[in-house]
């Protein structure tokens, strides 16, 4: 509990760039989507799993936010939380999620259900397991469309064909009656996108939309998302572990580690002047095609932490190469997310000048 209060105080102190997010202030924000201090905890027999622990961000229409992190960093839990897909019996969700002026965390299931599909939709990672194998692709799109729109089956079917054509499925009037298993992986993902977009949602959450796909198909899907965003002016949250995908599509990037945001900024901030040692580690771990081949990759030591038993202080400290520079502060105190530059926020104890110096002198030349 004490920790929670700490957190709020922190936000008051450094809450300059975002709207103040104190408990007293629950005015609807000006942004299209605003998430304030979102916490999603799961009580288990082994202890409380803090999958998301105090996450805040905002997103405008027509913009893309990339959420990057390793498995278990809480990125998928966040997206399911926004859609209200967590079982309320075993997930504790707190904080605020404002979508176009409506608060979702406290809303009734019925209210959220009405928004889901129409105002916000999701593209899942594995289209084969997220489509019903028993119904045709068309049936599933029609069903989603008719739940939110009072139209006849015939009109809905026409709409489904239209959507399938729009996402680039050849001969949609025939493929609409196919079952998911008759589609290839790339086409299934297109069909998923068609389904997600069928009600013209303003918020689209894509959870690893291309991870299961081949690189040429991935390129097609990313192009498609880009085009559709231009057409529908929707806001996209792109969740991925692939920094390449994020760099291609995102306007803003949020780097998650251990259920918390460690760095948040524009795509240029995060790729060209990253300030968190974890972000440096991610960039150094990746072999890159656009640079000279480096002799060695620069991996992060250790493995991602367990969410039940996060390291004390900064969750990244056991893997951080610079934790000692703070004289033990990293193991004792959790760093707050502070502004490093306008709009660029970093949660690290290292002084800003030191971070910039390390990036410029030690990290950037090796990448």
């Amino acid at each position: 509990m004490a920790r929670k209060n700490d957190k709020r105080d922190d936000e008051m102190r450094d809450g300059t760039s975002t709207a103040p997010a104190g408990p007293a202030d629950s005015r609807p924000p000006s942004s299209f989507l605003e998430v304030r201090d979102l916490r999603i905890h799961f009580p288990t027999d082994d202890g409380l799993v803090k999958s998301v622990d105090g996450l805040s961000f905002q997103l405008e229409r027509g913009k893309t936010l990339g959420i990057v992190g390793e498995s278990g960093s809480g990125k998928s839990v966040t997206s399911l939380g926004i859609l209200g897909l967590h079982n309320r019996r075993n997930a504790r969700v707190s904080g605020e999620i404002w979508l176009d002026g409506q608060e979702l965390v406290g809303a009734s299931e019925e209210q959220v259900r009405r928004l889901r599909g129409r105002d916000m939709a999701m593209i899942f990672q594995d289209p084969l397991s997220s489509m019903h194998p028993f119904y045709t692709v068309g049936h599933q799109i029609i069903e989603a469309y008719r739940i939110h729109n009072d139209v006849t089956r015939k009109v809905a079917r026409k709409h489904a064909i239209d959507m399938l054509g729009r996402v680039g499925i050849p001969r949609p009037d025939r493929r609409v009656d196919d079952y998911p298993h008759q589609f290839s992986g790339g086409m299934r993902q297109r069909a998923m996108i068609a389904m997600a977009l069928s009600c013209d949602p303003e918020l689209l959450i894509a959870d690893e939309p291309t991870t299961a796909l081949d690189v040429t198909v991935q390129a097609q899907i990313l192009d498609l998302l880009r085009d559709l965003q231009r057409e529908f002016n929707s806001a996209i949250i792109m969740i991925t572990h692939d920094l390449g995908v994020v760099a291609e599509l995102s306007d803003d990037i949020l780097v998650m580690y251990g259920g918390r945001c460690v760095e948040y900024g524009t795509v240029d901030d995060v790729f060209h002047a990253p300030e968190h040692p974890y972000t440096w580690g991610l960039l150094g771990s990746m072999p890159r095609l656009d640079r000279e081949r480096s002799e060695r990759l620069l991996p992060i030591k250790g493995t991602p932490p367990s969410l039940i038993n996060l390291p004390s202080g900064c969750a990244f400290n056991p893997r951080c190469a610079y934790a000692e520079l703070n004289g033990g502060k990293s193991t004792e105190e959790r760093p707050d997310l502070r502004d490093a530059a306008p709009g660029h926020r970093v949660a690290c104890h290292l002084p800003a000048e030191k971070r910039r110096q390390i990036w410029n002198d030690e990290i950037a030349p090796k990448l």
Partner: protein
Amino acid sequence: MGDNVSTSDNPAPGPEETPPDAAASEKAASEGAAGAAAAAAPVKGTGRRGETLLEVEDLGKHFPVTQGIVFKRQVGAVKAVDGVSFSVRKGETLGLVGESGCGKTTTGRMIMRLLEPSFGKITFEGHDITHMSQRDMRPLRRDIQMIFQDPYSSLNPRQTVGSIVGAAFRLQGEQPRQGVRAAVQELLEMVGLSPEHYNRYPHEFSGGQRQRIGIARTLALRPKLIVADEPVSALDVSVQAQVVNLLEDLQDELDLTYVVIAHDLSVVRHISDRVAVMYLGKLVEIADRADLYERPMHPYTNALLSAVPIPDPSKREGRDRIRLQGDVPSPLDPPPACRFHTRCWKAQEICKQVEPPLQELSPGHMAACHFPENTTVSATDLVAKAAVAPGPAPGPADSPVGKD
């Protein structure tokens, strides 16, 4: 069907056996330090680098498709691999890339003799192992080992790490001089695990650690060749880099030869000395790493490379992109002649009629295309050569015209 074997092939001295000087010197330079380390380490295979360790000629695997319940009759075949030829030199890493369904894993499994080849020939250290019996194969198993993709399903959950890694000694009836336990613990240390992990079970480890256990198991008998099938694709980015570095260190230390099968082009570039690109069961291009990535000749390779997302937002605009349309055709009924012609933007009439042979277009760089890029060789020359004289064409003519 599976017997129109290597007779049509001329086993002419392939360019792979005589490495181009440039590549050799580059390799020597990059391995100067490594060579010293390897000399100091207890190395089993003391073979000179550059000798051919593994040779694959016109290898293919067709999976029959049957119909009927009692009387199964064959109605077709999935041509998973349809005649690939390459060789792997001692101490090098050959990367095998391609999209899912291109036959790269099937090729790896045939090299391991986990799958029976339909046709073609596999030569390991001069021995033809293509149709060797299980019993004859067994002693060779210590020389050829495999790293599997999924560290979760490739370790027996009911066995301890000690028993998993020690299995190799048991199965081969080998008694390490320091005892099995000590030998296993040594291996665990070698791959960056702690010797205390000996009595633990796989579920107690993270994905990256499990992959290390799998690697320790492969190393137990000091193999000469390791076939690694997507060794890092199931791992998180930060852990992936650890395992890539580990594989490179082990190669230097133990003088290993790798065939790395992967779909991630950036990982393959990092880890490989030479790279082979597959499409629908065929090799379309094979070249030294630098050559392939800087001057790709086959349109498919070009398309693959340009589809890789670049983690640099400033390069978002103005990248010269090639976007392939549609999906890879079914290997049940692959397109005739050049298999890529249905998706190729350079395709002409000839591509639908004459299969382009895999030939050396510049030293050490082979591609199978009528209209290759980044080369001065004219397309008409190639076509003429291919149409007139499939046999004496330079390089192992992969698949002569009209074979299918």
